[in-house]
């Protein structure tokens, strides 16, 4: 394939956001991946959204392994912008699951 690649290589070692098919939202450091988008996330936190209260952050000290077929989006986090966000002020309903 020419020039531009649809590969996660550049994101290894950096902070990523992952949205899964069941609507969960994880933020962590991408440590590894394979061709089926199985992911390894270190210092991973789950962000639980609620329409009534702020975002609840569940910190996981270990490593998360997310199976590729359960991954919808992998986003590159702008850490400066992410640090400026006040999670406790965000009110949003949780994402609905992917419906095929």
């Amino acid at each position: 394939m020419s020039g531009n690649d649809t590969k996660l290589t550049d994101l290894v070692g950096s902070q990523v956001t992952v949205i899964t098919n069941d609507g969960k939202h994880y933020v962590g450091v991408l440590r590894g991946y394979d061709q089926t988008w199985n992911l390894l996330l270190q210092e991973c936190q789950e962000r639980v959204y609620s329409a009534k209260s702020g975002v609840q952050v569940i910190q996981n000290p270990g490593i998360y392994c997310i199976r590729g077929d359960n991954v919808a989006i992998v986003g590159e986090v702008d850490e400066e912008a992410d640090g400026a966000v006040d999670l406790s002020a965000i009110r949003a309903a949780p994402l609905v699951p992917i419906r095929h």
Partner: protein
Amino acid sequence: MLFFSLFKTLVGKEVTVELKNDLCISGALHSVDQYLNIKLTNTRVHNEQKYPHMMSVRNCFIRGSVVRYVHLPPGAVDVEVLHDATRREARGG
């Protein structure tokens, strides 16, 4: 192969990807692969009030299997060429 080729011609264009969880993400199409996984740069989520999850994300990868629609800019596709390519593909070569 036809759609893969079509998307390759759209690299650099502004597109909107609608996901199967109703999330709409606009951005410049950076790349696409054989599974129609998509990489967007300079992304923006529609209705950010409702979907604040991607606020600090500027570039993202979207798995092909969760894409419902890709909205293309008008005039981005030469319909005549696509027409011919479709017929060629249907004939098997």
